[in-house]
């Protein structure tokens, strides 16, 4: 039998925890899902920031199917000029990448930008900011959301994930799996679907 004293103590603890969780709810929500500042105006990303974002794009796509710089520039310009809040996030993302670059690689003032780093160094910067959780049951998106900084989360959610999606929807992304034609881009031979892909990995 539980004593009355223990019962009251347990009840008080549960109640206090519930109140704390309720009070902290807005904070937790913001913490787990960064919000866009939709009061921030639309606009064009400054060139120096654009260079860093292009460098980010080149780091997160497949190296063997690299699109031209314009591929990234066009996408970023389309987003920052049509969706409120994103211009601010892109500027913040570039700032975060540069600060982390400077911390990791103590370079001269002219070479502490993310865009100036080697591909391997850029990857290390990302590893310092973003968790790799693919294939791991221990490191999950939920834990990352609780542990990572707001700007690191925003970098993943608002910048990296849409860029990756844009890439893998494009011909460059389909080429990663050997498809030269794909939904939206028909093959030269409409009956190509009746045959396997050829040995070279392209559409026969």
């Amino acid at each position, binding site marked *: 039998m539980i004593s009355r004293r223990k019962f009251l103590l347990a009840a008080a603890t549960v109640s206090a925890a519930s109140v704390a969780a309720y009070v902290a709810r807005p904070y937790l929500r913001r913490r787990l899902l960064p919000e866009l500042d939709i009061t921030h105006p639309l606009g064009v990303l400054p060139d120096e920031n654009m260079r860093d974002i292009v460098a980010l794009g080149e780091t997160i796509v497949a190296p063997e199917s690299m699109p031209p710089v314009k591929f990234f520039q066009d996408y970023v310009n389309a987003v920052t000029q049509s969706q409120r809040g994103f211009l601010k996030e892109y500027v913040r993302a570039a700032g975060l990448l540069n600060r982390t670059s400077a911390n990791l690689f103590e370079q001269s003032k002219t070479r502490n930008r993310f865009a100036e780093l080697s591909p391997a160094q850029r990857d290390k910067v990302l590893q310092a900011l973003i968790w790799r959780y693919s294939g791991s049951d221990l490191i999950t998106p939920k834990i990352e959301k609780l542990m990572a900084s707001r700007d690191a989360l925003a970098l993943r959610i608002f910048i990296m994930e849409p860029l*990756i999606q844009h890439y*893998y929807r*494009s011909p460059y992304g389909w080429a990663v799996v050997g498809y030269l034609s794909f939904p939206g881009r028909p093959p030269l031979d409409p009956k*190509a679907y009746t045959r396997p892909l050829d040995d070279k990995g392209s559409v026969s």
Partner: protein
Amino acid sequence: MKRAGHKDVPDVCIIGAGLVGGLMAYELARRGLKVVVLEAGPHHRLQDRVAYMMDIVSGRIPGWPFASNLPERDVYSNAGRVEYPVNHLRVKAVGGSTLHWGGQALRFIESDFRMKTLYGIAEDWPITYDEIEPFYTKAERALGVAGAADSPFASRRSADFPLPPFPFSAGDKIFQEACQKLGIVAHTIPWARNSVPYQNRPACAAFATCGAYRICPIAAQYTSEAHLDLAVATGNATVIANANVVRLITDRQKRITSSVYMNHDKKEDKQNARMFVLAAHTVETARLLLLSESSQFPHGLANGSGMVGKNFMERPAIAVHGTLKQQVYPYRIGFPTMETMQFCNPKNRHERAGTKLEFHNFWGPKPYGIAASSGNWGKALADEVRRSFGHDISVEASIEQLPDPGNAVSLDPHLRDYFGDPAPRITYSFSAYEKTSLKAAIKLAREVLAAAGAERSEDKASQGFAGHPMGTCRMGNDPATSVVDRDLRAHEVSNLFIVGGSVFVTGSSLQPSLTMAALAIRAAEKIAGGNT
């Protein structure tokens, strides 16, 4: 398309510009009848479709194409044990749901029309397969159906398919071998999609967007825009878009004199005609009749039997997915090319529904889907995408549903639409017949996947609907138990014809569209006085 001249009273006013509305418009207009078609939705121009498709595929426009341009108009409620998603596969636009339909154009089989006689369940249709067969042929020619008479389970046909079939895909060999192991005969699928150029429409170019994105950018797949254009070209037909019909008005002789419609600014207009054809989709057709109550029709227009809205049916469907070691080359064409009708007419059909199996090798996540759920980037992500892509297959099984008066479309007493009218309320559930049949279908699908060598198949099948609502205005010889007669004329309103899935007496495990088209062509001939 120009606006109708309101001064001249046309012969026929068609409400709804979808599959059957478009066919009726052409069939009547080519015979010299003056026709006005009222369509609730907008007119999406075909010449914009490639760009529109690219916006959909690239994700610039989220969701499926041809979404409602007035969502507040398309509200509905559910009151049954199973929630029915009315708007999921319905398009309100010139072309209707053919703008993003799958395009399968199958004939029902003979037994589908005689369920009461053969199995002692449901009802017989007032017409037989033999009576509708010539109109199936006409419908196949109208829609341009590509197929082969290679299904030993199909009913007799008096003519070949107008277009050659689509050959099996590379990945279909996996299913073919699995079916052979199980003694299942698989065959091609008839499609209302051009395998070769036909009727001024190009052959399918394998854009591969029809299944995954529900849009054909070049109109190789049939849409009723084709027949609406032909109808307008006769000089006898006009199509009015954004015309939301809210009431049908009758005179003392119990004949409809006009349809009242609203535009998006809630400006009211009306269209007079001598004859009216209601082709507004199963749900809206019933709702419009119920909304058009009057002192002469206190329970709704043509509803003396109380059957308007009753016996709502669908084609419940499940999909079971599996993963193979080998590549299946998905997404190189947008539609399946193999299925089996072997289980559409089981011997124990009095207790087990007919079931059709389709074999899908355009399943599983696309590269961007894999990338989206990954926490990787760069080379590691590319390796993961390559490793994961292209190994998923799926077996989809759709079953027939029996008519049940308890499954119904009615007027919601509380929820109002954009125009202030009661929204449709769907009361829907499955009977034991459907529940046991769905379980059997899942088992069957798993057997095929196992025979195909699938390493695993998901424990829980995806339950859904094929997007084929039927019933609500059933046809029959007895005015006490049906809404329209065998010619689709309303028993109680002599100048009203109802076409589409709403008049079906029973469903089928097979897609209903070709039967809807065949019945519409037959009704058009009746309206035109047998002049073919």
